[in-house]
């Protein structure tokens, strides 16, 4: 038995050495929005940069960058890729001035938001309230919180698979549209809902 196994192992080792086939490696992919960033691997004293989607780098000091065939990606990463969670979705809801009444357009968006939450298994939702700069900062902190609390009530954990609804108020400190103080700006009177 050993006389057969040994040469096989040796041949395999030689083949690996000849092709320079990286055992541990990374592959850069195109983002879901179509953009491509870059990854930098820093090993012992060397740095390898990959900037092209579909290219990989060995996780050693060889600094080799190589094209990775789709077949190899599927073979090595099929399960990890298939386990990707549903991408988070973000909604903005806008309010009438000075209170917690949604604009008509935003109120019409509610069914879509609830439907989306239902499509995210074990959803965790963050609800962040904002105001414009009309009125004093302390009152706006409170108003933004009231807006967020009201929106958070849409997600009933007894009726849907929701793990957590986190409510935060940013008051008038996180303006979507930069304005001076005491400026009425409809786009700043908002609640941001992220469904993960």
């Amino acid at each position, binding site marked *: 038995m050993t006389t057969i196994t040994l040469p096989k192992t040796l041949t395999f080792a030689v083949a690996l050495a000849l092709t320079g086939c990286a055992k541990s490696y990374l592959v850069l992919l195109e983002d879901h929005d179509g953009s491509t960033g870059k990854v930098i691997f820093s090993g012992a004293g060397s740095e390898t940069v990959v900037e092209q989607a579909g290219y990989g780098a060995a996780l050693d000091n060889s600094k080799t960058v190589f094209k990775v065939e789709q077949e190899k990606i599927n073979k090595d990463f099929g399960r990890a*890729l298939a*386990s990707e969670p549903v991408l988070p979705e973000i909604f903005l809801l806008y309010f009438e001035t000075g209170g917690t009444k949604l604009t008509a357009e935003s109120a019409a968006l509610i069914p879509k938001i609830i439907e989306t939450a239902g499509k995210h298994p074990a959803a965790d939702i963050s609800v962040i309230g904002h105001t414009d700069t009309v009125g004093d900062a302390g009152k706006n902190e409170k108003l933004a919180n009231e807006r967020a609390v009201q929106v958070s009530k849409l997600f009933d954990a007894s009726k849907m698979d929701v*793990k957590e609804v986190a409510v935060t108020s940013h008051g008038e400190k996180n303006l979507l549209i930069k304005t001076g103080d005491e400026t009425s700006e409809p786009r700043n009177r908002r609640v941001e809902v992220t469904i993960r």
Partner: protein
Amino acid sequence: MKHLFACWSLGLALCIPGAVSADDAVIGYIKTITDQTTIGDSNGPIKASLGSPIHVGNVIKTDENGAAGVTLKDNTILSIGPNTEFKIEAYQFEPQQDKLQLNASLLKGTLHYISGVIAKLKPEAVTVKTPTGVIAVRGTRFLVKIEE
């Protein structure tokens, strides 16, 4: 009455370790899962299921049939394949205080990573450690395989 006091002080005593630990906050949840996957901390591994919370210091481990996906609070997405061991070393997501950090380690197996808000706001705050070095990201999606 005496009994009531005893219960109350016991409750307090139980609360204190939780209150002082900075690692208590939930930083994400298991969103996809198949077969045997565990989440481990200093108390040892427990079986993970859909919706299991993830904390800093957790090691997510899959067996030869396992796979799992996690979404973190900043919308970073991590999914792992079989025979994988992945650890969240550090995590901070408080953009208002400029506290942003994500350090993870892939000890073995396969990882699929998609950048979240932390990588967008502060790219240098994100690293994935491997047995032979460190991966830094500049707003992107990538795969890593560690062969032992």
